[in-house]
């Protein structure tokens, strides 16, 4: 097992190096280069020259890359042009929000997706099955930001049932220890604040969770259909096990393996910044900051965020991989 983990970690190195090289090149290829990116569009030539001198941008490109890499390893991603704060601090302030949103979206997708996929497979070819297929196809084709706007318009603006923007009501003066608002409320025993944060997660969670939901329904359905035709299910039935035992122990358990793979893959994608959903709901996470950085041309922030998010994505996928190594010994030998 240890060898498997070490091997996977070693495989990460070329990918991370390549990523850093790509993003290093990206910032340099931008019109105006890194100095302009850091100083903004109205920087004077004198300022740019000064900046280039201070940050060693007149040195050879190899030396520059190595220095960039050295800083990145120490988690120094420069400062945001707009706020002047370190990019890492900006990221850490906002990432808890994105994690909460991801969890909300996954809970929505899993709680509805797995039972729906299972029922669809049990009623293969029936009304439920066909409805589930059509709905899941719609789920992947509907533009996420459009769905987000519709949900917001209907449930927040017109019906007023749920909050439609932000992470917490501005009138609530909550103490934030971890920046996980739901958790903070529980820690400080301000349960109202916690509940309010949960309510703020409902609509964005549904919007963000639709695509994973659609995918989970389809994978669960396909997996159950695959498994019910397996020999071991026939054997279990033949030896007289009750239907519910066969379903619970043999069908569902085996069918859930591919489903959990899918969930793992989706987690990485969701964490990598729900740019569209967060923008619509003005949700103070990583995604809305990215959107803001695009319009502000805050390139240092963009570079840092994209680099960190790509690393998070790679690491989450690695964790998912390793957890299967634990679950399923067959995976380790590959």
């Amino acid at each position, binding site marked *: 097992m240890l060898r498997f983990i070490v091997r996977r970690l070693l495989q990460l190195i*070329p*990918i991370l190096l*390549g*990523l850093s090289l*790509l*993003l290093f090149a990206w910032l340099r*290829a*931008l*019109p105006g280069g890194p100095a302009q990116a850091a100083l903004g569009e109205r920087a004077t030539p004198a300022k740019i020259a000064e900046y280039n001198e201070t940050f060693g941008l007149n040195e050879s490109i190899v030396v520059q890359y190595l220095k960039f890499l050295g800083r990145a390893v120490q988690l120094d991603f420069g400062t945001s042009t707009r706020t002047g704060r370190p990019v890492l601090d900006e990221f850490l302030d906002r990432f808890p929000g994105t994690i909460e949103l991801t969890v909300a979206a996954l809970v929505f997708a899993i709680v509805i997706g797995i039972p729906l996929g299972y029922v669809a497979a049990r009623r293969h070819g029936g009304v439920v099955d066909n409805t589930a*297929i059509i709905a899941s*196809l*719609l789920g*992947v*084709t*509907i*533009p*996420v*930001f*459009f769905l987000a*706007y*519709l949900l917001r*318009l209907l449930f927040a*603006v017109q019906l007023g049932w749920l909050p439609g923007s932000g992470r917490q009501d501005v009138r609530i003066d909550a103490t934030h220890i971890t920046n996980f608002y739901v958790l903070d409320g529980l820690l400080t025993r301000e349960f109202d604040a916690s509940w309010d944060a949960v309510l703020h997660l409902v609509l964005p969670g549904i919007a963000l969770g639709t695509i994973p939901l659609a995918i989970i329904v*389809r*994978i669960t*359905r*396909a*997996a159950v259909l*695959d498994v019910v035709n397996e020999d071991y299910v026939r054997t279990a039935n033949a030896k007289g096990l009750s239907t519910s035992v066969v379903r619970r122990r043999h069908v569902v358990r085996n069918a859930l*393996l*591919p489903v*959990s*793979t*899918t969930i793992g*893959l989706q987690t*990485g994608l969701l964490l*990598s*910044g729900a*740019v*569209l959903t967060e*923008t619509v709901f003005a949700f103070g996470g990583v995604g809305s900051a*990215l*959107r803001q950085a*695009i*319009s502000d041309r805050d*390139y240092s922030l*963009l570079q840092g965020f*994209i680099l960190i*998010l*790509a690393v998070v*994505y790679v690491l989450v*996928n690695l964790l*998912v*991989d390793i957890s*299967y*190594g634990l*679950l*399923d010994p*067959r*995976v380790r030998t590959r």
Partner: protein
Amino acid sequence: MTVTTPRPGAGRRDRIDELAARAGQLSDGDGGESLLRSAVRRLRRNPVAILGAVIVVAFLLVALFAPLLAPRDPYAQSLLSEVRQGSIPGSRDGYLLGVDQLGRDVLSRLLYGSRQSLLIGVVSTVLGAVLGMALGILAGGLGGKVDTVVMRFVDILLSIPGLLMAISISVLLGASQLSLMIAIAVTQVPVFARLLRGSMLVQRDSDYALAARALGVRRRRIVFGHVLPNSLSPVIVQATLSLATAIIEAAALSFLGLGDPDISRPEWGAMLASAQSVLSIRPELAIYPALCIIVVALGFTLLGEALREALDPKFRR
């Protein structure tokens, strides 16, 4: 509808390889009937395929004949006195679906928009497929060190989530229709590369390739004459599915302000994005282009899924 269930522990990379390997089992003959013919036969009997094809063909016809179908000039702003902030008139004589916030005929813009949206979808998919296939052929055809180097590069591209990559490229190239298409194409490149390479690896080890090699046929001829044509089916399926993704992704980039800066040009993604500001007054202005996107994406997805089913050996009978 078929879905390939992922193996436990399979990452995005492994899933692509798996699709390629599945399709690789195709070349075995089936009672003398050619693969293509049997696929077409099954497609014609599959209602899903027919529905998908009908949708796609209908939209292609609309795009082709948009100037004949559109009742008005999609760029012309009519000076209706009611068009002002806070009120946009709906359907009326001569304006079947009403006008937008600048007094332009919505129906005509939707019809003309099909041209732009399909163009973006097709160009970016073709570009992505061609670049990806070039890498795939390099890796799968030459093997060895070339394969290792190319695939490491492809894996790096795969490790960046698609939307983030598209954003980075759009920012780099500046907002324009061309950079939008390039950005979407680049996100597709690694998928096509890995898919074709995987599919070619299976074919390269097949008996007929071995026989050709034993007969002394040159490598280039084996790769381009035998291995490549037999490896294309998963690529075709992927391209059909990618068309849907490309159109949706173009809308997302437009929404983020990275689309075509010429906002007067009718395009569904841009129409949808610009209608968000008047969503509470006239939600239809967003709903119409969104429906177009959903339906056309659905058409390509249905067609792609049906193709996959038709080309999948598991379903041959």
